[in-house]
């Protein structure tokens, strides 16, 4: 990645002072990149208009050598070699360079390099007080001015003073460039927030056509998607995938950005959509993209979209795809419910098999296949699924409550019915009543005689045993624990956990939830060591999901273990890149390299 070239140099800022389309800068070499976009590349160290062989600009190289930034130094050497294969790094790279008036500037550069700009200013002022004849080098002053301007721009952007962002950029145009991409993004955002969409669009266009890194172009398109229309994103993607290609960069990922954004938008709509609200062509596009990328998350979302519309066959197809690409209890849950909707109970049970007793969501879903029955419940038979079955298969939890209410008023409460009421109340975000229902079920269980007839299934397995190998009493205790988790009663539950009648797997699950809640509180309280301690304990019990991985990363970050945080964020982002993970990677990366 080229971190040094400053190919934008003023190009971006022309959008500040000039009309949106007038991008022209002084000097020759203007290129039409796309209709309406004319960008001129200002000469920058070692880039821009045809570098003369043997005249490689080594300024930046010497700067990084002087400050001892080996990583950037190597990147710069690689970049200069790419420009001119005959070029060799100078032998005297690490030799001290002449300094002015006997003052060694390296302490100031060290501060600049550490991002301590105010400290560098103070040190320069103190030096000037002591050595009035000394003038800091123009390079140093320039670097300080730039860093300060970038700081102002960020400060204004962080506090949403959008006009100030634009003013700060105008005052120091070079603070907005490819190697300070974050500033360019903030400038574009400021335009967008001020409803100057054309200027925002122009700024994004300049970035994706001028900054060589494919990853940065792609990230820019993602950023822009918050502010631009679908058509503008399409144009931006086309530009980013073709304009000014740099050697060694693969722009395929840029090209894919538009489709990913569009998929994201459609999936979001599918998630909240009422039946039929996605057009046939939207659906077709979504399906195509999800298949292409084998995106199991997307497949799940589509599955639920169809399931809600009672299109069980389509739903089953997508849940099966999701499960095939990446088996999970979430995919199994969907499959079970879709099969239940189709009345294919044997397949539903088969889909549940790998997760039975290990996943509460699968155990719950199974109940729609073999719903609990009290004494008055109709046995499943040729007349088809019961009212409760149907409600559960539809994930219609209000319907579940109504059906149970009806069954209870018909023939009195049973443990199974009251338990199921507890689960449905939990789904309806009514945990306090759910907890009460499980307590009630437990009291009922103590009184309810073992039934030999009625539900044949129960007589086979023994009345005291419910699905998943847990007893009635265990399920009641488990339900209460889940309900208490939902009400935020972490302290009480932590105290009671040891005494509760739970299977070891349930106990581990509840304890893991408690630990992640506690870790969240610790993060809010800025007790970062505690966050790690709690997450480590949780990891002993169950694998760490993505969101907790990101939480762990922020705890590391705040403990100044930025390198570790970056590695963690990166590994999460590499598996599945989301806005959250991208921003985490970006922030930690910038902190490591002081690239704000």
């Amino acid at each position: 990645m080229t971190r040094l070239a400053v190919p934008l140099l003023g190009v971006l800022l022309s959008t500040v002072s000039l009309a949106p389309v007038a991008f022209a800068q002084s000097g020759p070499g203007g290129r039409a990149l796309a209709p309406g976009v004319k960008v001129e590349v200002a000469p920058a160290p070692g880039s821009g208009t045809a570098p003369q062989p043997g005249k490689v600009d080594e300024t930046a190289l010497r700067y990084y050598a002087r400050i001892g930034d080996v990583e950037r130094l190597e990147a710069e050497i690689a970049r200069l070699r790419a420009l001119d294969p005959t070029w060799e790094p100078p032998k005297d790279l690490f030799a001290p360079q002449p300094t002015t008036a006997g003052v060694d500037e390296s302490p100031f550069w060290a501060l600049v390099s550490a991002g301590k700009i105010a400290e560098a200013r103070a040190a320069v002022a103190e030096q000037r007080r002591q050595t009035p004849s000394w003038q800091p080098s123009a390079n140093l002053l320039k670097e300080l001015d730039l860093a300060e301007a970038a700081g102002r721009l960020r400060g204004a952007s962080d506090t949403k003073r959008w006009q100030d962002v634009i003013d700060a950029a105008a005052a120091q145009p070079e603070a907005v460039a490819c190697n300070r991409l974050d500033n360019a993004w903030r400038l574009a955002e400021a335009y967008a927030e001020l409803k100057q969409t054309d200027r925002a669009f122009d700024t994004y266009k300049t970035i994706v056509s001028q900054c060589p890194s494919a990853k940065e172009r792609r990230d820019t398109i993602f950023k822009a998607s918050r502010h631009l229309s679908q058509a503008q994103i399409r144009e931006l993607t086309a530009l980013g995938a073709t304009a000014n290609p740099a050697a060694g960069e693969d722009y395929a990922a840029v090209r894919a950005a538009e489709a990913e954004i569009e998929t994201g938008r459609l999936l979001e709509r599918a998630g909240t959509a009422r039946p039929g609200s996605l057009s046939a062509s939207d659906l077709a596009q979504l399906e195509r993209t999800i298949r292409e990328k084998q995106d199991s998350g997307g497949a799940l979302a589509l599955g639920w979209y169809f399931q809600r519309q009672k299109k069980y066959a389509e739903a089953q197809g997508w849940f099966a795809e999701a499960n095939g690409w990446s088996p999970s209890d979430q995919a199994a849950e969907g499959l079970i419910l879709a099969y239940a909707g189709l009345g294919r109970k044997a397949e539903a049970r088969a889909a549940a098999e790998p997760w039975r007793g290990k996943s509460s969501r699968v155990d719950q879903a199974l109940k729609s296949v073999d719903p609990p029955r009290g004494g008055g419940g109709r046995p499943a038979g040729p007349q088809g699924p019961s009212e409760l079955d149907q409600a559960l298969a539809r994930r219609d939890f209000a319907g579940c409550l109504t059906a149970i209410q009806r069954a209870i008023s018909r023939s009195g409460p049973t443990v199974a019915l009251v338990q199921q009421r507890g689960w449905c109340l939990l789904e309806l975000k009514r945990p306090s009543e759910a907890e009460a229902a499980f307590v009630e079920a437990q009291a009922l269980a103590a009184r309810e005689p073992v039934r030999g007839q009625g539900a044949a299934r129960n007589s086979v397995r023994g009345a005291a045993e419910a699905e998943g190998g847990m007893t009635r009493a265990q399920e009641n205790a488990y339900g209460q624990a889940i309900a208490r988790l939902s009400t935020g009663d972490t302290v009480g539950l932590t105290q009671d956990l040891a005494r509760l009648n739970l299977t070891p797997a349930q106990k581990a699950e509840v304890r893991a939830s408690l630990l992640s809640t506690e870790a969240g509180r610790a993060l809010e309280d800025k007790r970062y060591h505690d966050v790690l301690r709690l997450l480590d304990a949780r990891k002993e019990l169950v694998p760490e999901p993505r969101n907790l991985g990101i939480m762990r990363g922020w705890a590391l970050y705040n403990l100044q273990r930025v390198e570790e945080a970056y590695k963690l964020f990166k590994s999460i982002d590499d598996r599945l890149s989301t806005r959250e993970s991208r921003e985490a990677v970006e922030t930690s990366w910038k902190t490591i390299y002081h690239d704000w």
Partner: protein
Amino acid sequence: MTTPSRRPSRRDVLIAAATTGAAVAGLLALPGPALAAPYDAAAWRGYARRFLLPEGRVVDTGNKGVSHSEGQGYGMLLAEAADDREAFDRMWGWTQRNLMVRGDGLAAWRWQPDGGVTDRNNASDGDILIAWALLRGAERWKAEAYRTAAAAIVKALAAAVVVEQAGMTLLLPGRDGFRKGDTLVLNPSYWVFPALRAFAALPGAEIWRKVADSGLVLLSKARFGSFQLPADWVALDSGGTPTVAEGFRKQYGYDAVRVPLYLAWDGYRDPYYFRPFAMLAAKYGGTAVPATVSLPGGTTTQVAASVGMLAVYRLASRIAGTGNEVTVPAFGPDEDYYSTTLAHMAALAAQSLGFEP
């Protein structure tokens, strides 16, 4: 002025004074408007006549005749510079009897004619100015008692108002009330740099070097608005990020104007630290400079900078090298305590640097 004003505002008075020059020059009978007044024994006599009462109290005429620890400090500094030990002793005596009543070696910040000390909090810059004046007096008059008294104040200050935050060693504006959770409220103009340097030279007082160093860092960080001026009151969070403090006037003005004065006096010459003030003066042609600028918005007040403030701008513009001249008019007949004090301090600073006043 083009319109007759209903009530003469401060701005009207000022500009009238500037245009009619010596004709309305005040009691001090200083030279014409184009030059800043030098500071000399005559200037001190004029100052004492107007603001120093026989018992040794410096009166803030712009402020209902109250006295401040700051005013006592300024008065003592001016008396020392004019070699008037008798007046110096009167002020120091009054300060000890009336302000140093807290029991911790620091001075109560305000004394009112009708109630004496009603508020016992200190103002750190007042204590700093008094201690600095004592150190200078000790030097000039070879009086160890002053040095001993100064050292006690400096020690008390270090215990009461010097705090660490975000790797900086900072000065609270008073002992009580300037911490809000993790956030400190600071006043950049309380960094009287030459005084801090004098303190650091005392035995065992190296921490003042750190206070001064951190002050420079703070002044680089705490710049706001298009002029990049320091705010009168700055909030500094636990991460060391400054903002214009809430709950105060969000402005640059009567307090922060002293920032370039103290920097200049301590020998700082880096234009970076003086440019914001010079640019503000330049924008208003060096004459009717607004007295305050809201931050970060940049709205200016109708009230013009006083003669004393203009004297500071003149000094800052010289050092910034921005090429603009600031015209400092003569004092008006009722020039208030603060303006007069600033003008004399600016002249003293310039003289110590070898500038024309």
